[in-house]
């Protein structure tokens, strides 16, 4: 027997009220919509001005992950985000938003720059996942993801993250560790793609809809689980229908979150951020001398 708190029981009950499979799948499709605003679409609209930085200082520059310096409501910030492409040429150029180690090294460089200069960090998450190529693996994809998380964990400056499309696995999390993590209404966030999950658990990638319904990569679930701090509304029918309005809504949310974080004492920011993530996870306690089972 596993002893659960009343809170965990409530959580489990909430997840048992599952809603409609088609509703979850619509969000997945919106999150991946090719007219959805991407990181640089928001950069154009949120920032008074910005300059992109390039390169990992090791051997490459990854167009799938952009970083730069910007003016955001009269303060200098550093931003970074995955970047997808809209037409076929750009989608290929941007590798469908799947970053390689050089991308995460650029991210780490930008994070360290921000921390050194005392600039807040804004991140935009929108990737199916880190690129699973031979070269990427040989270049240490796993290690750079871990070190990008570490760099964000260590930063003394405010970090506000926004999941704006697909928050896919470690490649997303690598730049999604912040004092506030926001998520748009039609964004998704998950440990693996619905297709990947279906392939493993249902032995059939075609069962993606079913998998998405089961593991619920949607904002509401992330909020219930304490993984994100707020859901950012989108224009009716999705951000892809009105980029300007989506940007204004996102701007309101980021601006508010950043102001909150800036108002908190800087000296303890890292330990507060660590405490926030430490609290993520749900578990029970084994009842002594009982058969293993959750009821």
């Amino acid at each position: 027997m596993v002893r659960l708190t009343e809170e965990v029981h409530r959580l489990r009950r909430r997840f048992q009220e599952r809603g409609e499979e088609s509703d979850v799948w619509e969000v997945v499709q919106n999150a991946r919509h090719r007219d959805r605003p991407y990181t640089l679409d928001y950069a154009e609209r949120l920032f008074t001005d910005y300059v992109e930085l390039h390169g990992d200082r090791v051997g490459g520059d990854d167009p799938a992950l952009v970083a730069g310096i910007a003016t955001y409501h009269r303060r200098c910030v550093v931003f970074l985000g995955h970047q997808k492409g809209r037409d076929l040429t750009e989608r290929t150029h941007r590798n469908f938003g799947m970053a390689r180690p050089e991308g995460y090294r650029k991210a780490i460089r930008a994070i360290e720059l921000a921390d050194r200069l005392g600039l807040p960090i804004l991140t935009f998450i929108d990737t199916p996942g880190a690129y699973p190529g031979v070269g990427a693996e040989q270049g240490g994809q796993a290690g750079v993801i871990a070190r990008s998380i570490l760099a964000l964990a260590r930063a003394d400056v405010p970090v506000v993250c926004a999941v704006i499309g697909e928050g896919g696995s470690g490649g997303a999390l690598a730049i999604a560790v912040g004092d506030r993590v926001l998520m748009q209404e039609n964004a998704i966030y998950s440990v693996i793609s619905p297709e990947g999950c279906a392939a493993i658990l249902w032995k059939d990638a075609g069962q993606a809809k079913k998998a998405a319904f089961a593991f619920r990569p949607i904002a509401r679930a992330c909020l219930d689980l304490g993984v994100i701090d707020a859901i950012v509304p989108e224009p009716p029918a999705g951000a892809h229908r009105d980029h300007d309005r989506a940007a204004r809504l996102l701007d309101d949310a980021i601006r508010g979150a950043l102001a909150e974080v800036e108002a908190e004492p800087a000296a303890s920011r890292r330990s507060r951020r660590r405490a926030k993530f430490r609290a993520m996870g749900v578990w029970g306690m084994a009842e002594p001398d009982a058969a293993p089972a959750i009821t």
Partner: protein
Amino acid sequence: MAQISVDIERGPDEPASPHQGRHPNTCPVCSSHYRDDELVAALRVCRQCGHHFRLPARERIAQLVDAGSFQEAAADLRNADPLAFVDRKPYTERLTEAELATGLGDAMLVGTASVGGRPCALAVMDFFFMGGSMGSVVGEKFCVAADLAVARGVPLVAVASSGGARMQENVLALMQMAKTVMAVDQVRAARLPFISICSDPTTGGVIASFAALGDVMIAEPGALMSFAGPRVVQQTTGETLPTDFGRAESQLRLGHVDLVVPRAELTAALGRLLQLFAPSTDEPTADAPAPVPPPAGPMGWLRRLFGGAGG
């Protein structure tokens, strides 16, 4: 602790079962077959070809630390299935099966121990509990191990063996990557060493979080250490994979690992590192007039292994 064949969750490219189509005590490389007691006595290393079989966590601890020194912590943490997750069978059922099969509450054991008389905090994963996948309990347990290291001022040692994050907990599993990385940062902030030992496999969200952040990175021979598994890489990119793709030996060559250490030498290697990192106040106070020359003999492997001064 018998090896059992559970329907574990893996990286999408692991074979569908760790022993698919063969007995778990049959070497997948040279097909030598062993009795269970033979294999345990051989540290689950094939005497013929050196293949390292996967090692249950309790066997790993028994091999690695000073006898009787392991003090388990957070033993009563159990999964709570927060998402009430059901695929072809309920997550709760999988958890129950895994616990019954392995005798473990989840895929990691943590606590304190000593190795060669040197104290450390310890976190050891078990692949036989749902593919060693990392969910809420594994993440929290790793943090407990880090807490123990900091509280006692001792190094943290982790032995990873995992296909990655546990899908059945979705984003909560993903967050364990951030949580465990922050635990490593906490150990770093306390100026304590973290030694990461990667056994086969250490992939996905585990190698992309705490397991990659060792001050010293040790791998067992042949351990798969890729973020994406070989099958995913092959299917996604159509690229031809090198034969040693993601394996410990290529990770060493590519600069991602400090040492590849055979299991039989792991205890000595770990003890030596803990000795090197030990604060000087633990040492005898009389200063040696000259450095002690390295002994020859049975510890010669250490010289070979480390390119160093020997045992």
